[in-house]
């Protein structure tokens, strides 16, 4: 298994008050376990605040687990982050994360350098990524003139600069128009075809249904169901219906 999560728990502690300090602890993820097979797309679906982003941030080495273990490529995400980092990348939804006053090409060159990609390799890879996300024509324009969708497509290209073995995507289609979202789905399929492993969080059930080999439904920090999309659905049911049945039941 290329990703192994075992009894993973993450809490956030905050302190309030000036004179008598009050400690508040929120449990974002509460002892989840799952494993992801190489070359597959694994979907993590759930409500806002369910623990999806915390899980992804832990797997990309940005957060330490409070307890339990998270392993990526066989390495512990906290203690052996150095071995993991060159071999993974991520795409987060939203408009932040790129240099607005650089062109798309310069942005990709910058992020390639962060991954120590040799210039000749980076050049070809940047052209490939720009082509894949349909930004070749706009590659030399400052990103501050880009639309939300174009920025999001640049984020996708940024996630490919180091040719990662695993790509973590946290709501990557947020803000994308239907054509942009379709393009992203096609990119993810191409990457799976190349043997890449993808972990995806999304609120769009049809997207998860179309792309994911396995889906875990997470709610309140715990996994409430995990299976293939077809096995999660009852006869004649859409994934949307299954989600409401499995997560809504608990919410209600």
């Amino acid at each position, binding site marked *: 298994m290329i990703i192994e999560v075992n009894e993973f728990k993450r809490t956030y502690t905050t302190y309030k008050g000036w004179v008598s300090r009050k400690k508040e602890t929120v449990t974002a993820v509460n002892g989840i376990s799952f494993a992801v097979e190489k070359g597959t797309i694994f979907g993590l679906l759930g409500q806002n605040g369910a623990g999806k982003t915390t899980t992804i941030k832990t797997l990309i080495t*940005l*957060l*330490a687990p409070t307890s339990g273990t998270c392993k990526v490529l066989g390495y512990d995400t906290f203690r052996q982050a150095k071995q993991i*980092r060159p071999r993974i990348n991520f795409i987060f939804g939203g408009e932040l994360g790129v240099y607005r006053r*650089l062109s798309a090409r310069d942005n990709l060159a910058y992020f390639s350098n962060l991954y120590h990609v040799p210039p000749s390799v980076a050049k070809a890879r940047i052209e490939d990524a720009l082509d894949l996300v349909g930004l070749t024509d706009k590659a030399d324009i400052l990103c501050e003139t880009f639309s939300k969708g174009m920025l999001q497509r640049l984020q996708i290209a940024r996630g490919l600069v180091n040719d990662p073995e695993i790509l973590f995507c946290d709501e990557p289609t947020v803000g994308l128009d239907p054509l942009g979202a379709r393009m992203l789905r096609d990119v993810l399929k191409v990457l799976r075809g190349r043997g890449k492993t993808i972990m995806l969080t999304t609120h769009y059930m049809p997207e998860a249904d179309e792309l994911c080999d396995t889906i875990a439904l997470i709610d309140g920090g715990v996994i409430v169901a995990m299976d293939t999309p077809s096995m999660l659905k009852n006869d004649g049911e859409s994934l949307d219906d299954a989600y409401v049945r499995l997560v809504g039941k608990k919410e209600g």
Partner: protein
Amino acid sequence: MLRRFSHQAWLNFKGANAAFSFEEFTLLRLLYPLVTLTFYVLLAAYSFNAENLTHWVVGNSFLLCVNVSLFTLGQGFDSERIDGRLRSIIVAPENKLVAVLQKAAFPMLVSVITVFAGFIVSSLIFSVPFYEINLWLFMVVVIVSMFAASGLGLLLAALSLMTDSMHLILNTMNYVLMIFCGANFPIAQMPAWAGVLSQALPLTRGIEAANMLFTQNNPAAFAGLIFGEFVIGAIFFLLAFLAIKYAERTAIRRASLELF
């Protein structure tokens, strides 16, 4: 490696200044330092009723130059956090200290040039006999002092991984330097504890060495001060190297890298 460093430094600089026209950039980098320098020298002239303003022109031109290193480096991670790019830098294999240094390389280079120009202009205004000194040696003092201040800036950058109050920290440090490094107030007239503090700060020896170029010909003492400034810088670099590793791990534990 050097090629990658300079490319990254250039992209950082380009990204930060692409919005300015050439005229705006020139005014910002030349006029602003000159006006600030003039303000502090005039303040000193009227406060101390001094006729020879060499000491204040030298000290304040140093302070301006070094503030660029301190602020650009100190805010290195903070600005990345605000724009949502910190996660990309942390998760990438690039050394984090190098990533911050890349951000500061061109601003530091520009500030050496512009403040040097400002020093010449203000010397003409305030009748400082800059033509009597060895300008190459003066440049060496500036560069070594910037190296020392960069060490302090990097140490502060490490702190920024754990706190979002960098404006408070950097502004406080800025005034600590202004008060204790000898640019505006004579260290000899300060209490003993302040004298000890000033010796632990970057710039103190650099400013003394630069003033020495105007006041006395003592190559051994001059070299000692330059060496001392370099050692202070090296100590801060070492501390920054250790602190950044600790800060990154602490930030990952505490979830303070981003606004989660």
